[in-house]
């Protein structure tokens, strides 16, 4: 199971509290994790990445194991600790304001 931490607004939309867990078949990558989240919670389609291009929305970031994976290729393997469920895959709403 892959552990995923969603930002508060997306947890509200998906009607979940705390972490969510999804199962991923094959390589654990940003794309496969997001595919699994969207399949389980269709309401989240389009909120993290574009419907058509699948590009990450500009103010969304992906963190794992204290590193920013936002600019990595979507098919790059995520850290082993994420694949084994030791560490969560974090979807972050970029901090903005003033």
């Amino acid at each position, binding site marked *: 199971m892959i552990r995923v931490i969603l*930002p508060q607004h997306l947890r509200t939309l998906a009607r979940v509290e705390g972490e969510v867990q999804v199962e991923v078949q094959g390589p654990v990558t940003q794309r496969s994790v997001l595919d699994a989240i969207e399949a389980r919670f*269709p309401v989240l*389609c389009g909120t993290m990445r574009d419907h058509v291009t699948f590009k990450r929305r500009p103010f969304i970031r992906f963190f794992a194991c204290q590193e920013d994976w936002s600019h990595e290729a979507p098919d790059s393997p995520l850290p082993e600790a994420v694949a084994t469920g030791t560490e969560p895959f974090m979807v972050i709403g970029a901090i903005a304001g003033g």
Partner: protein
Amino acid sequence: MKMKKSKGRLTDSKTRRHSNRMTINAHPPALKSAGMASGLSSVRVLVGTRKGAFILESDGKREKWNVNGPHFAGWEIYHMKGSPADPNRIYVSQTSGWFGQLIRRSSDGGKTWETPGGEKVPQPGDFPSGQSNKFVYDTTPETGKPLTTHQWYDGTQHPWEFKRVWHLEPSITDPDTAYAGIEDAAIFRTTNGGHTWHELAGLRGHGTGPKWQPGAGGLCLHTILIDPSDPGRIYVAISAAGAFRTDDGGMTWKPINQGLRSKYIPDPTAEIGHCVHRIALNKARPNVLFMQKHWDVMRSDNAGDMWHEVSGNLPTDFGFVIDVHAHEPETVYVVPIKSDGEHFPMDGKLRVYRSRTGGNEWEALTKGLPQRDCYVNVLRDAMAVDQLDSCGIYFGTTGGQVYASADAGDTWEPIVRDLPAVLSVEVQTLQ
């Protein structure tokens, strides 16, 4: 002090032209259409704000209000509107700079909300899930070829990019059909209650699309009006392209900007390029349109084929909202804003102006509205009228106040004072 614009400057109104003023007696007397008895009805005011939605409810007297919300707390609610065919069906445009667009829907008058298609697909072959916020421009070879770009601020061509839904207009007859006006400007339609949306590409494809360019608020299609006597006739307005009309349910469109004069564009009478802020009509006389343009209050007596100015004695004719009395087609409301550079009322006085003559002759309505130190704005979708016998008028401000008048504007009361900035106000009159 009366202020008027001239080539971007404010000048004394006495210097203004009046050659295109209408003759007031040229119009038939106000048509009294049947209203709803105040004692048997109630109203539901739908308020979209920068940080959520609120529902304000009252009986027909409109004296005591229940304020319900925030719904969708923290999200921008550009617009929410109820279906005329089923008042329990309410559509909501919910947006966020972080998470993009969502379409929400209620089937019980706002008690609960759902995302059409947002739940798990129960059976293969059902609606494709999670597509209610999927607004994809038509790029089919037949209609997509001329639709690839529009004009950008620097004069270059720019790809069409979906940003958000500004306005949702439910069908008059079918609660599962609604239209969406989006940025970058296009009109979409759903016929399955918001599960999926498809562009009516004839609007962008009619020929002038590549010349459209954004106003300061973006290239947004913000106004959709359906002719109640002919659902195939739809009006839309785009900032800053102008007004357009279809007479065949959205297949083909044409610009309807003749008579508009905009000094801020190279050709002031160009076919397109006018920054139309809002259009309104009375259901009993749908061929008569009133427009609040960037500057100028305009009127058309032939479904937009020709416009003439009816700003008359307004202290300034810049503004965003405009609406028409539910039962008096010649009674029109605007909220003058000082200028395009200063988006607040003149002299710190919040005043609604009413014309009972279809324009040109305007009176200030001030009772109950702040008459000092008021520097809020009233945005284009933030005024609405109810259908009760004594017509109620409602508007919201960027300061978070929602004002209501139960006597057609003679007196005003704030329903609420401290909401987030109000983006839109709609009202449902319920039996």
